[in-house]
């Protein structure tokens, strides 16, 4: 419990060290050293799944005469990467005071396209227009990287077809849905010469020919001929290759990832130090209490996953009577008749 945040900032101490070898606007390659495998992997996992970004979460469809079904389009919209710069200023919808969503916890984008020409019209991400107040001018704007400046294709329209909808983009993490993932692929490896013998190099004739060396092989000393195996060695240098999916620059993914780990640990410390914190502060899911839950919960003493009471058949009464003398849709205690 003697957590000292200062240790991390002190480069001269034994804290983790990051050495960036290559960085551009889509990927960053770096080496993390002086730390343990579990921490290195935690960072990788967090960068994959727990960095908050923004993605379209709700779609209100006003008009859709395209060939694609509403939920089909909604699914596609969700996967369009949106700029997440300044995401920390946006609240999670569940933490916001508003009823459903508001400008503090969401960004609204409009899409309206109608094909009037004879050619097939492509509706792309750039046609998504952010509206209303935003925490900053870029948060929630679609990311467009292609040379034509179109962005990802959403759907195609033919003459006379129209699409009009409003998208609500919300903050979230990839654990909930992968549309919130900030990173695409994260390369991760250590010990390029297999000095630790964490794997067994299976080969047919000659491992050197058949197994191309790792690109990090030059970074570490190759094992000496006849070098004795060091049983106590632990992995120390980890090589990352982080590629962004768009919403956050690759270097920001790394810093954000570290931040998320920090926050998670801080939360843990907070929970552990504030001894009375457990009961009331808990906001996570829990099993339903007595007398809670849906209306159907208590009435029949039985419960099927789909909400209708146990004595009701979902299929109508086809010749069968229920023990209570009523088929669900043919009179009796039909709640709707």
């Amino acid at each position: 419990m003697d957590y000292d945040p200062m240790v991390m900032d002190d480069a001269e101490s034994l804290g983790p060290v990051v050495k960036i070898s290559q960085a551009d606007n889509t990927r960053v390659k770096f080496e993390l050293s002086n730390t343990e495998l579990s921490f290195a992997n935690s960072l990788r996992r967090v960068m994959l799944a727990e960095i908050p970004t923004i993605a379209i979460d709700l779609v209100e469809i006003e008009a859709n005469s395209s060939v694609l079904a509403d939920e089909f389009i909604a699914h596609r919209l969700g996967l369009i990467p949106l700029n997440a710069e300044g995401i920390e200023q946006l609240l999670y919808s569940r933490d916001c005071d508003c009823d459903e969503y508001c400008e503090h916890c969401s960004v609204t984008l409009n899409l309206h396209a109608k094909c009037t020409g004879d050619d097939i019209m492509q509706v792309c991400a750039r046609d998504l227009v952010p509206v209303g107040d935003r925490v900053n001018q870029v948060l929630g704007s679609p990311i467009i990287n292609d040379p034509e400046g179109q962005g990802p294709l959403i759907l195609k329209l033919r003459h006379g077809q129209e699409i009009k909808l409003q998208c609500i983009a919300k903050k979230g993490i990839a654990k909930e849905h992968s549309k919130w993932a900030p990173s695409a692929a994260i390369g991760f490896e250590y010990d390029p010469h297999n000095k630790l013998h964490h794997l067994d190099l299976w080969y047919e004739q000659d491992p050197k020919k058949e197994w191309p060396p790792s690109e990090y092989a030059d970074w570490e000393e190759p094992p000496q001929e006849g070098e004795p195996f060091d049983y106590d060695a632990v992995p120390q240098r980890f090589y990352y290759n982080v590629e962004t999916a768009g919403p956050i620059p690759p270097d920001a993914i790394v810093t954000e990832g570290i931040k998320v780990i920090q926050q998670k640990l801080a939360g843990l410390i907070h929970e552990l130090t504030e001894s009375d914190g457990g009961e009331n502060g808990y906001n996570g899911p829990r099993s339903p209490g007595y007398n809670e839950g849906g209306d159907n919960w208590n009435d029949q003493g039985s419960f099927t996953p789909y909400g209708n009471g146990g004595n009701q058949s979902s299929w109508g009464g086809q010749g069968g009577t229920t023990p209570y003398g009523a088929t669900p849709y043919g009179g009796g205690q039909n709640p709707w008749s």
Partner: protein
Amino acid sequence: MAALDDGFEALLEPFYNGKKLTDPISTTQDKFHLVPAFLKVKGLVKQHIDSYNYFVNEEIKDIVRANRVVRSDQDPNFWLEFRDIRVGMPTRTEDGEQVQSRNPVTPMECRLRDLTYAAPVEVDIAYTRDKNVIVRKNIPLCRIPVMLKSAKCYLNGATNAQMEVFNECPLDPGGYFVIGGTEKVILIQEQLSKNRIIVEADEKTGGVMASVTSSTHERKSKTYVVLKKDRIVLQHNTLSEPIPIVIVLKAFGGLSDNDIIELVCGGDARYQDDFLINFDEAGRAGVYTQQQALEYVGARVKMGGNRPKFGAAPRRNHAEEGLDALANLVIAHVTVEGLDFYPKAVYIAMMVRRVLMAAQNPKLVDDRDFVGNKRLELAGQLISLLFEDLFKKFISDVKYNIDNFFKKPNRTSTYDPHGAIMANGHYISHGLNRAIQSGNWTVKRFNMNRAGITHVLSRLSYIAALGMMTRISSQFEKTRKVSGPRALQPSQWGMLCTSDTPEGEACGLVKNLALMTHITTNVPEEPVKKMIFAADESVGPIREYTGTEMHSKGSYIIHLNGTPFAVTREPKRFAARFRTLRRRGWVSPFVSIHINEHFSAVHIATDEGRICRPYIIVKNGKSMLKAEHLKMLQLGQATFDTFLTSGVVEYLDVNEENDTLVALQEDQITNSTTHMEIEPFTILGAVAGLIPFPHHNQSPRNTYQCAMGKQAIGAIAYNQFNRIDTLLYTLVYPQRPMVITKTIQLIHYDKLPAGQNATVVVMSYSGYDIEDALVLNKASLDRGFGRCQVFRKYTAELQGYTNGRRDRVGGIMKDEDDKPIVKHAILDADGLAQVGSKVESGQTMIKKETPLDQISTGIAGDRGSDDYRDASTNYRISDPAIIDKVMISVNERENKLIKVQTRQTRRPELGDKFSSRHGQKGVVGIIVNEEDMPFSDKGLRPDIIMNPHGFPSRMTVGKLFECLTGKASVIAGEKDYGFGDAFRSHPVESMGQALIDHGFSWEGKDYFTSGITGEPMEAYIYNGPIFYQRLKHMVQDKMHSRSRGPRAILTRQPTEGRSRDGGLRLGEMERDCLIAYGASQLLLERLMISSDGTELDVCQECGLFGYKGYCNACKSTRNVTQMTMPYACKLLVQELISMNVGVKLKLEDEFPHPR
């Protein structure tokens, strides 16, 4: 070539191995381009369409010509003649029977409006009126269903743009019918060939039997020549007992005993010795002359039966009876003209000879399972059988009408047959419709009654529909445990798919056509007869030869469709010359010729239903297919038919194949080679063609995939969203398989795929992957892997009733706050569901109402209630859906037709079924978060983790190949790698090199790290893209539980089945377990309390049931006690009592009170 874009252009124009027009062409490499050329001409389901076209264009005319004239028994001067018959183009019928309608109708309209896609049939007639001949043209007769894409269909030859206008998918194969809105396929029927001699041996008695099924337009009968205890007899249905063969031959007349023995045995002493005994039989029966023989036969002809009923016809004597039977019933397909029995005598002698030969040498027995002895009946033939029957019935109805008219002594008008034709014609329409609708084929004159001929076209996936069109069903009983008909026949090579057959009871009986199979239609015999004589000077008519000459060594009898026709002494030269005539187009390419050395016979076949297949001709060790031919094909200057007439390719049927030596590849050609395969992979059918590297798989795995490919969800057709099918599954993001085969391109599976390329790693993970379960990546599902849409149709028809009342669509019911009640929440003002709204279980989609009064006449005081009863269509599935489409139309009966289509979008969940293309199915065992997935050093995370235990016992090496090939082609961007054709070599070495060049291991394994710990996997992991199909079996449609629920009325036991919210049965074996365990209370609870336990009053005095504590038999309440028993038991007791079986219950206290 016409600008007919049927999707084959891409295959033909830039040769699709990435070849340009300027690239060199090697016949060895590129000869498979004949396959797309063939399919372009013949199409995938051309067999059906050809057969149907032959019927509507030719056979229907022959049938009418054969039954042309109707005469009256009453007025000998009157006749009615049908001079011509024509089938028009499909039209709409606005009210029921109106045949005249000239409104063209599209197949799509028929599907949507529940109409029948049928065309009017018109006849030209001529009849007499007062010695004048009156000719009337274009009299509507009936309507016959039209096969899609046939000559009578608007889709025939339509371009893609036209198909789009028709709302039709350009890739749809056609070949089916639309009857009442449902698509019906007439399955290909497999039968033993007709009019051919089949010799069989009876293993038990050692007898030999030659049989022939004669089939003519009038009748079908089977004649046997049986060798039993050294004596040969002839058996036939109409003969009450077997007749010694010599008597039969004598009855034909004009044959001396010497002639007979020569015809049968020739000069061979062995056969003569065997046959001689039969003369004694005739002598014993006292038959020496033709007259005696005819009387002998006539006395044994069965009376009655289905022989023509001439009530007034004079009773004939035995000799006439015998003459008639021999002329018209025995071997009916050999016609007797002017009492010339010689051809028939030769035929029967030939049968006897075959029997004698088989008795001498058991190897000469025929194989019934040999594909050359089979004939396939297609839609056209089956319809023509039916049509002929119905037309004959129609003729007799018209004749009855005519007779009735002329029976009247004083007629007021002259006779006009128009009315009779109009009145009786619709029986033909109805008969055809009903047969195709129900699949029951009833042909009275053949006593044929077959069920299950037609099936609803399965539109589960494109492959399912295609597979159905190539399916062949056999007439064998499914229950019989015989292996012969089910076994794979060597003669099946190239004709029938070796892999595509169902598992289980129909295994081997239901087959599928291979890719290049063609089924012949009938070719007229007469021109062929002329050609036989013209072909070679050594050929002479059979009549000019004596028996000895015929059967002498070196002379060969030429059989035309199984009937001896001519004799030659130069069979090889004759066959070669005849083939040359065929290759030059003087004879139809579908006439086959082969030499049978065992029987010294040359067989020429022109009949329909033979299975054949094209081959490249090889002459003098040189393939006739030259590079310039392929060049011409490439330039579009030639079609497949050009090569057919120019002697490059020819069709061989199964029998002719036996005369050939076929090389698989050009380098295997020797001097004796006669033909070369166009492409070896065409021995597989369309469905088995989807499998990459099938030649590396264990064969049952390919068969399993053939069954599963039909269940895969994917794109159905380009018009899939315009269709309203009862159940339609579509994949949200279908992908072209990474590894394809040429077959896939040929059948356009790459355009309508059913599956997705999943990145698969082969390793065990989490323990939730045992027994073939799969591990799925949650993020992949988020991104749309395996996502599918399910559409369901709900229909309602607003019927009219005889009293003029009609069903109606009622309004919405409101609650106190003037809001629609929950049940009607999604209804619009018109009483139909709103498009786009979410419908939950129990809600109404079509608020149909039926009048309570459907019978009152409305005359005088007879008026019923004006009220309506709710007959709405409700949504009954527990998971909600979205209303996708609402269609309102009018059907054939002029009733309003309402169709509502609902849509569900489903993402894969635990328990959903997936399969690769190698018969490796599995259910989802666990869905794992992406960060927990193992990943490669490049950061690649799999979509699916597959357990390696699936490989050793299944031996699906093809799957490993698919994975590696897919990986190499993805990494290298090389399209060429991405082919997994059967029986071809693959660039494995260069693929391995490509992998190494891009930093991967050559054998497809990579360094993987555990996502959970961050430690590397100890071993390298095999990974790559594999095409995975999502199968239609989904948990959502199957999950079921019940605590309480409906019960059956009769037994009061819980209902059965998920659809009735039924209980889960505790069966006999479960009961046994509980008894053995001694869990008596649990048993009591399960079998009685939770089921049908009832409280009953039983009288201890009389043992009968009481009522409310009172025994009606004893008139007392004294001894009545209550007890609990199963209701089913009570029911049994009462039923027994009702049948006068007394049942009395004697009660005893199990735990008596101590008194």
